[in-house]
């Protein structure tokens, strides 16, 4: 009675050795592909949500992302991300009134300096023209939901939502 299970054990062990050889050529790629096909995406709290529309300004664009809401007990506030790019085309000082929700009315006025040194710290002021958005004064990069950072060739500003 022991013989068939023993045979099976050795067969599976042999297949495991074969699988070890196949890891770099087949298995790893196969599992990686399978993983990408699951349709997973990185939490928008990090990435900022998909782009909704783009506003053209003088030589640069302002990209507006979809509003991001925290999950369950996530400690961040809901926010909307606005990207100014390319940095090389931005004037030394930005003071743009932006229609965030696309209703034809300006919602926030965003003001920040654009330093030439890409590693220089950024600070932003946001004036809320619509009570739905929260004003910010001299904000740097303390939290994911209210910040100004430079990522590659864009300056990203995240404006918190008030919930109104």
């Amino acid at each position, binding site marked *: 009675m022991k013989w068939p299970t023993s045979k099976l054990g*050795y067969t599976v*062990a042999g297949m495991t050795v074969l699988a070890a050889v196949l890891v770099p050529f087949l298995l790893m790629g196969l599992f990686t*592909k399978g993983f990408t096909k699951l349709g997973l*995406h*990185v939490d928008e709290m990090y990435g900022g949500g998909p782009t909704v529309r783009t506003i053209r300004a003088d030589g640069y664009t302002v990209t507006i992302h979809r509003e991001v809401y925290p*999950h369950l*007990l996530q400690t961040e506030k809901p926010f909307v991300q606005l990207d100014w790019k390319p940095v090389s085309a931005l004037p030394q000082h930005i003071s743009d009134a932006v229609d965030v929700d696309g209703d034809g009315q300006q919602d926030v006025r965003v003001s920040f300096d654009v330093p030439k040194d890409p590693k220089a710290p950024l600070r932003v002021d946001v004036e809320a023209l619509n009570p739905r958005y929260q004003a910010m004064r001299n904000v740097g990069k303390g939290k994911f939901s209210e910040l100004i950072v430079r990522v590659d060739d864009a300056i990203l500003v995240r404006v918190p939502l008030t919930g109104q």
Partner: protein
Amino acid sequence: MADAACTAFAGKTPPRTWSRALLLTLPIVLWSLFMSMQGLMQHDRSLQIANALTAAFLIVLFFMMMKTSSTYRWRRWFFVALGVLFPIGFIHNVMVLRGSMGIPLEEMIAGRTPFCFLPIPLLILPAALTKTLVFPGSLLPGGGMSGAGMAAMAGLWLAITLVVGKGWCSYACFFGGIEEGMAALPKKAQWKKLDPRLRLVPWAVLLAMVLLSLALFEPAYCMWLCPFKAVSEYVAARNTVGMVQNGIFVVLFAALVVVLPLLTKKRTQCTFLCPFGAFQSIFNKTSVFDIKIDRTVCSPCMLCQKSCPTMSLSDESIKKGETLMSCMKCGACVDACPKGAAVWHIRGTQVAVKPERARLMFLYAAWAVAAMFGGSIITQGLATILQRVI
């Protein structure tokens, strides 16, 4: 061919002749050379040397495993080298690309946070429920320190786990080597009486971290408890919370990876904290290889229990002739048993019948993935050092 090298009954396998050991090492020689081929053809001289050294190192260790029929002490050299050289290569890369070990917010937003295997169990529930990965990395290669992306790391983990199961913690984990090295330093353990209930702590940490990660939608272990942040990268301390987090990383590293292994001669971080290790234990149930205690020859002297670096042998499990599911197949108990009662085993086969065949089959599989994954990390670390020297 391997049959002749296998013992047909329980007992210690005697050392092999040089020629037989060389013959058994031949597949690993070819595999190691094949794995290092790409690096050897590079124009970077330090990378070429590092590749050659790594291949030679892995071949010599495997040869010694074959020659002496001992597993643990040779595997330990590989594992310690992996644990020591990983931070060297990694920190060098981080400093070159980013200039700091702290991850700035910009890098997280850009999805360029390096992804290791430790948060994998924490990502499963949020991913299953909302299709969201609660980690500031990128699914596919995203430049910078993102490496090959989270999908590639997950794919690699799954492939290696399929082969070695919980053996990941002995042949692939690039963190455990530091504490294994620390545990190897003292001749005797100062603290011998460790409460066996502490073995359950990693399961509690796993449960807590999985639930916290789901509730807070962040990789809670990486944010709060990972001791290896102290030797890889950490959240850039932007505020008091960040400073507290970094303080926790340093204290846990000092306690669990340095001080306690020196006092107990155990891998204390793996035994008493690591939630990934607990999670990986589940795959011991799916692996065809395991370690058994042959009750017909066991005295019991408990040397296997004393030698186990992760407390994976309890009195009850020895009576049953088994290891606990946290066994990472390092081979310490097999090497320590004077009667050859602790044996390598293939599920479905009779215990202690041709245990050396089981050992050989496991080692070929484990060493193949070790040479592929760990070998590349050792090479990177060595190349970093050589770049400074040459």
